């Protein structure tokens, strides 16, 4: 249960060491170079983000590497990594499903989405399926209230969900099929359902 609770994941998950890949290292250096000498610490968040993109999560060994690169106390990096909930402190599945349960989504039955996910995947919050495919995480508002309810899967938003479309998405992902981000009910972005109702004659 410690994904966002400010504690490192169990030692058995922690890799002994970490190194940026040859592709990521120049990017990390570029992030550091954006700040004046003596202020390298400012690059701590971009560097942690690069770590997360590389690993899917942020292990302690990587935080130590970042601290040493920025010449800052290791505990300073731990403070940052644990403060921001979008850094994953534990390994996550191939697909990280972040379900919004804040008021607008809740009013549009995010509870049904949550139930569908938990039942279909057989996991609870902050857990990962045995096959390592899915991790389920509850999050606060992701800013897509006009298309509530919604979830974020890895980098994409999936909106206007119903329990059925949610299950369909999960099955498609499990089969390795491509899925289309955005509204799942045929809507175009946040236009009215069934097409425009105004400005029809324009352009």
């Amino acid at each position: 249960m410690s994904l966002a609770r400010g504690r490192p994941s169990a030692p058995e998950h922690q890799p002994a060491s970490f190194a940026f890949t040859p592709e990521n290292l120049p990017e990390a250096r570029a992030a550091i170079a954006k700040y004046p000498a003596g202020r390298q610490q400012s690059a701590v968040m971009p560097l942690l983000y690069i770590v997360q993109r590389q690993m899917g999560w942020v292990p302690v060994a990587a935080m130590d590497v970042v601290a040493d690169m920025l010449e800052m106390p290791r505990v300073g990096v731990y403070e940052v990594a644990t403060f921001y909930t979008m850094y994953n402190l534990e390994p996550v599945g191939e697909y990280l499903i972040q379900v919004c349960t804040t008021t607008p989504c809740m009013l549009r039955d995010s509870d049904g989405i949550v139930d569908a996910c938990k039942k279909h995947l057989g996991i609870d919050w902050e857990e990962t399926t045995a096959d390592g495919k899915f991790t389920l995480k509850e999050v606060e508002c992701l800013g897509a209230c006009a298309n509530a309810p919604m979830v974020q899967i890895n980098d994409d938003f999936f909106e206007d969900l119903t329990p059925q479309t949610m299950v369909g998405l999960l099955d498609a992902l499990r089969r390795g099929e491509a899925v289309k981000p955005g509204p799942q009910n045929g809507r175009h972005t946040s236009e009215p359902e069934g097409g425009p109702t105004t400005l029809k004659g324009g352009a």
Partner: protein
Amino acid sequence: MVDTVKLTIDGREIEVDKRLTLLQACELAGAEVPRFCFHDRLSIAGNCRMCLVEVEKAPKPVASCAQPIADGMVVHTRGPVAAKAQKGAMEFLLINHPLDCPICDQGGECDLQDQAMGYGKGISRYDEMKRSVQEKDFGPLIKTFMTRCIHCTRCVRFMEEIAGVPELGMTGRGEDSEITTYVERGIDSEMSGNIIDLCPVGALTSKPYAFIARPWELRKTESVDVMDAVGSNIRIDARGREVLRVLPRLHEDVNEEWIADKTRFAVDGLIRRRLDTPWIKQDGKLAKASWQDAIGAVAARLQDRDGDRIAAIAGDLVDCETLYAAKMLMANLGSPHLDCRQDGMAIDPAVRASWLFNTTIAGIEEADACLLIGCDPRHEAALVNTRLRKRWRRGGFKVASIGPALDLTFPVTNLGAGPESLPHLAQGQGGFAEILQAAQRPMVIVGAGALSRIDGAAVLAAARAIADRFGAVADGWNGFNVLHTAASRVGALDLGFVPGPGGRNTSGILDGARSGAIDTVILLGADEIDMAALKGAFVIYIGHHGDAGAAAADIILPAAAYTEKDATYVNLEGRPQHASRAVFPPGEAREDWAILRALSGLLGQPLPFDSHGELREAMQKAVPHLAAFDEIMPASWEDFGVAGAMADTAFASPVADYYRTCAISRASVTMERCSAAFAMPPAATGTEG
């Protein structure tokens, strides 16, 4: 000339330095403002919100600790607005604070308890579950109860700013915030105990002192510390015959308000391995004896013996009065063989400037460059290192070291491992020579380890040459310093507890004992010499712990430790300070001076004092500056040191294990635990228990 501003606080107009914060200005105006996170010696955090006050024309109450002051401010610290704000802040702080004062070690000396009484509501409107926080392992010294934490971050700021070991942090956010090392491990700093004092609640308390006593049960005695040569001012808390804890006492020029961990936590060694009765060796085994028999046997041994065959060596914890009495006794016995330098430090006993920390500890703050020669201030005198760090944090302070590679918590340039770098530097070669040359107030610190080598006198001369070369000694500034590790050393040198004309020094005495030229050796708490050399000699040990010296003794006369006598100690700056008796010596043990006085009576030449007061008076007459309590008499700059060839072996610190340096700390269980946790190479991450 500092700029001042005028402001009105609770109707009282005052004019104060404009660099102060509003909270400090309120204090100067005599208004008490409650606070938890603010601390004079730490950076400002502004996160407890307890110091809210009303400032006229401000839209809402302001946190006075973080508020700069301005001309014409009108402030109310006790009005309805401030009182309501403070009550509110207190109510929030108490939401998650457990109501467990009866089982909390902070009880009775808790800021939260006191301020809840003074500024709180008395009732809570909070009905939800309180949160609980997992305990942390901060090592063998600090007990945590993190549910009590109010997140003032004083400990985090102390470790980062003062101790220089940034291992603590606040992780998580909101309700999940926790003070932690994150990756669990003990806090590896010799200053860590101070966060116990800083913690305004019972989240961080003393592990060895857990559930031992309440503050109101304790007898408090103001004294000084002897675990190193700094002479930290301490308060000894005792109950009955036992010293239960040691806390720091404010002395801006010595220890500010900090003490090192050994000072604070070694006191459990005061009740272990104590010599509480006289012992006489019979048939190769020590047997308990009466005072009459033991002291009679000592007198019989000394009576009519050629003074040239008797010698005395003083240890590192001996007070001035004892040394003065012992010196007189040795004169009566006709022996010139006495020395206080167990380690063989090649100090010139004639020139006081050659053994003092002349710059003074507070003077470090005025220095602008520092050269360390064969010393490790972090482990030899932790508070000197803290002061060096304080100076470094202000900027414009370069430090270089000749000796082992050091982690002093601030950057140090290593110029070499042994004395071979000294002549180069004295000739002005190398990058650091330029820094010293450019410095207005350079300082040189020579370690005890560097001076106790065989070539110590030459090292001393070379260090002096460097000090002279770079103008470290000028009008109003003396940048030449010796860093002692022994609390007794400066006092003993001041009193001249060194070989008389034709006398042998420590190594001479040991050689004499080996060859048989010396057949009777009096050890005044001396435990750090090569006892094997004394095998053939008759050894009389006067001291308080069953350490190496007692093991080698033929007769043991049990004496008092530093907490058990009124005594004068001179710290490394040359500052005479008084230790006071907090408890009586255990069992049959007696104060050292009384033992020597009784012995002198049996020898038919009674020392000329019958009370401690008379002894102190006589001593102060003999060495007048010892009477100037807490004052440093500057030493004049004269010739010392013997220039000569130096060996090319690397310098080494005499402190191999910070936690076990004297008979008391070696007897301490707490120090043993620390030693296992920190001083030994870590097996895994240092976690245990």
